[in-house]
């Protein structure tokens, strides 16, 4: 039956996200909060994250482009970004954020810029994967 197939595909995608280290147990925590009253809670939180983090990414870009280099400001913005990533269980994104902050602390601009590319990449990859997953999960209902 088509419904079961979709359901299986959604489960497969979801398991892959965990197995491949894109998501951690905090995502499970969000899933536990989803109920009949809030059937789209997880997706809402994730959408909120992506709206918010896009703004933070823009702020980082602007700050990286400015002189003199303001590592404290970069660190502060990244702290916020990392916090939100952590709250949705975005494991790989969070890891790259940590690396970025380490470069901030030693004032290594080149390291920051390089890691920032990784942050953006992981951020975009997860977005794509979650979008696919949520779409399938919705169709499977």
């Amino acid at each position, binding site marked *: 039956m088509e419904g079961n197939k979709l359901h299986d595909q959604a489960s497969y995608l979801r398991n892959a996200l965990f197995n491949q280290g894109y998501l951690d147990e905090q995502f499970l925590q969000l899933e536990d909060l989803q109920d009949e009253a809030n059937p789209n809670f997880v997706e809402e939180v994730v959408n909120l994250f992506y709206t918010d983090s896009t703004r933070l990414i823009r702020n980082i870009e602007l700050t990286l482009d400015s002189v003199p280099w303001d590592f404290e400001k970069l660190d502060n913005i990244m*702290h916020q970004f990392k*916090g939100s990533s952590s709250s949705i269980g975005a494991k790989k994104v969070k890891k790259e954020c940590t690396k970025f902050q380490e470069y901030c602390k030693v004032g290594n601009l080149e390291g920051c810029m390089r890691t920032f590319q990784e942050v953006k990449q992981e951020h975009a990859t997860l977005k794509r994967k979650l979008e696919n997953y949520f779409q399938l999960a919705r169709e499977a209902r």
Partner: protein
Amino acid sequence: MAKNGDFSPPLDPHEVHVLAVDDSLVDRKVIEKLLRIISCKVTAVDSGIRALQILGLNEEEGSVGYDEIKVDLVITDYCMPGMTGYELLKKIKGSSTFREIPVVIMSSENVLARIDRCLEEGAEDFIVKPVKLCDVERLKSYMFGEGRIQRQNANGEFNKTKLHETCNVSLPS
């Protein structure tokens, strides 16, 4: 502490009102949901200043804010721009009217010195982010556990801290 002749209705989980303070949009949404799941009423704000306004603890002397709302617990992020969670904690604990309200601090950083500092200043608990359901469930004991029972008067009713009179709250500088 403000005394009153009111008869407070017995505290019921559904009446517990938590003031959540966090500058992160995502975290506010999550903490709000977590608290609703344990049947609390939630007011979520994005700054310490706004939290003080909600409480009715204003910097302007003598003002009893029209949006002063009874709050049973404050849960606040530590790192916030402007007023930090620690500064908010100090303001609340430094107020004779509000110091009885339990304050819980949340932080993404598990730094012992920070935890100690908060507990010394009177924080009830310190939660390391990301916040989970089990963390929030633990809060119930501050809201209607032993801490609350101590504040019951002879009639077995809870004293609400309420601002009736003009507030001459002296805040620490």
